[in-house]
């Protein structure tokens, strides 16, 4: 079966006064129908830029998608005309953003913002769109949906605004929902509500989801597969259980070890990753993790490790721990 989404060797850079920021450096992955992919990484690792490129929402210039193919249901989104792309955006692929306050228009009512997309994409009458909007608001758990149709975003709490964003994203039954840190700005109890809501809606509509986060705990709850990014590269990709049970890349390993657990009685010192993530200007030819890596060998600084399969559905980009690594010999 063909994948719903295939991304091949995506490269994105931004021109700045300081030089080219190589935000995404050859990212490839697939996503099947009904599955959830978690993209994990720290700020500046290129996770948001990757999905913004899929949506063709990178401003050019200063940005530039310099290479890559993004096949969605077999069509290359990167080669698509703007009009055709607009048909897909919101209808086939919907996106929800991190900050529900800044991504809703403060001077339009909630109802108007959702029905706008329905009228545009579904070509239905205004009355029909209003009906559907109220149903959507009820579905995402907004109490008194009919009365709140004419409310403005400031009259909603953070969690409710994010529900509105989800309702808007789902308004045209997309086959792919991209969620860019949708719960980062929310409290844990509200985050739990949103995660549960997304899961139930996903199974209801057989939707695929890309969930971007820096929180390994959240992906553990929601994802089927996971990609770990560092400095614009995928460093490890695996099934959700594999990555937590058998992390292979030194970055993934260190990241998991540095996290305390709420259900653990171990209070020994946290393991740390020395240094800080690189800014992606003038990245070296080698592995970007070298300065912080305890296992680095000479080859790591000279040559970039490719993402290679080490076992079933488990890929790692590392000269030491990876497929061609001396560690496994």
């Amino acid at each position: 079966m063909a994948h719903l989404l295939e991304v091949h060797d995506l490269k994105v850079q931004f021109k700045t006064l300081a030089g080219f920021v190589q935000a995404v450096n050859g990212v490839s992955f697939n996503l099947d129908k009904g599955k959830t992919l978690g993209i994990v990484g720290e700020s500046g690792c290129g996770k948001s830029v990757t999905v913004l490129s899929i949506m063709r929402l990178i401003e050019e210039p200063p940005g530039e998608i310099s290479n890559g193919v993004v096949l969605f249901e077999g069509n290359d989104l990167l080669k698509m005309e703007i009009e055709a792309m607009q048909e897909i955006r919101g209808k086939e692929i919907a996106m929800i953003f991190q900050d529900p306050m800044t991504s809703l228009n403060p001077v339009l009512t909630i109802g108007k913002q959702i029905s706008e997309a329905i009228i545009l994409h579904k070509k239905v009458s205004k009355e029909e769109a209003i009906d559907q909007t109220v149903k959507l608001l009820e579905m995402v758990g907004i109490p008194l949906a009919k009365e709140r149709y004419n409310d403005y975003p400031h009259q909603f709490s953070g969690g409710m605004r994010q529900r509105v964003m989800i309702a808007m994203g789902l308004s045209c039954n997309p086959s792919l929902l991209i969620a860019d840190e949708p719960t980062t700005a929310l409290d844990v109890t509200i985050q739990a509500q949103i995660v549960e809501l997304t899961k139930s809606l996903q199974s209801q509509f057989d939707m695929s989801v890309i969930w971007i986060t820096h929180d390994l705990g959240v992906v553990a709850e929601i994802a089927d597969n996971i990609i770990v990014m560092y400095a614009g590269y995928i460093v490890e990709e695996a099934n959700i259980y594999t990555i937590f049970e058998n992390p292979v890349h030194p970055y993934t390993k260190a990241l998991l070890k540095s996290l305390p657990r709420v259900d653990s009685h171990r209070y020994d010192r946290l393991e740390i990753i020395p240094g800080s993530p690189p800014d992606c200007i003038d990245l070296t030819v080698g592995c970007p993790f070298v300065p912080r890596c305890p296992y680095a060998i000479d080859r790591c600084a000279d040559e970039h490790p490719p993402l290679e399969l080490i076992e079933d559905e488990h890929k790692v980009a590392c000269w030491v721990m990876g497929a061609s690594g001396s560690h496994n010999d």
Partner: protein
Amino acid sequence: MIESNVLISVEGLKKYFPITQGILIQREIGAVKAVDDISFKIFKGETLGLVGESGCGKTTSGRTLLQLYKPTAGHVYFNDIDLTTTDARTLRQLRRKLQMIFQDPYASLNPRWTISQIVGESLRVHKILIGKKAQNERVSELLELVQLDPSHLNRYPHEFSGGQRQRIGVARALASEPDFIVCDEPISALDVSIQAQIVNLLEDLQSKFNLTYLFIAHDLSMVRHICNRVAVMYLGVIVESGERDELYDHPQHPYTKALLSAVPIPDPKATRARQRIILEGDVPSPANPPSGCKFHPRCPIAGDECKIIDPEWREISPNHWIACHKV
């Protein structure tokens, strides 16, 4: 524990912010009850965690405790001196011993000041060291303590990364040799790989200088790691407090239970297997809090008395305190 080990004692602390209406003649039409009658003690050398969701009053508690906000009511004792009634001169001297580390390492450092000016400010203000040379020597020493390059003392904040800036914030707090530091979400703005660095640094400094911390955070996993005791806040009140293992392993208050069950565990098997309590709705506005127990509209086990009567703050087992009718 014996009372003499108490460093900070907070009694009935309240902080209301007035809501006003009118342009020329401002009338008070209500109050945001950010902190509404909280009491707790902090023992010498320990770390007390204050957790809760945004808007629950944990930051206001920290700031009111340090007298950065004037309390509406209540007392704060530091080594048996009442900070709320002491004169301005004494308070100013005591501030040397009471410091704060802020959440946002970008907003809390003056961009036009060098690191030497920022870290050395309290040395100048409190006249701890006189003369630029002596001050710079002390600043270098402090930078070394927080594992920064002491030769960077003439650089500006923008030349440092987020984690390094937070270290500068820590060095600034340490400059006046404090006994007590309020750490207000010191790691929430940092990248995951940097958080552990700062937490380890805070732990090292604590054992080195016998510091006492009030650690305000919403990351419950990190709080369990760093704190000896934890207090849970909801809508301006403390609903439960106890030793960390007791509180995390045997939470009694329905809010604490829900809060802990909502924390994601970085382990797909464990996190998918456990029973979660999903709370309905949002936190109500502190300007118009519910009657009785403030948690009752969202509480899965609330009864009639919860809607009317404020629950009593009582000790259910040694050092485990709770405010709930139903437990």
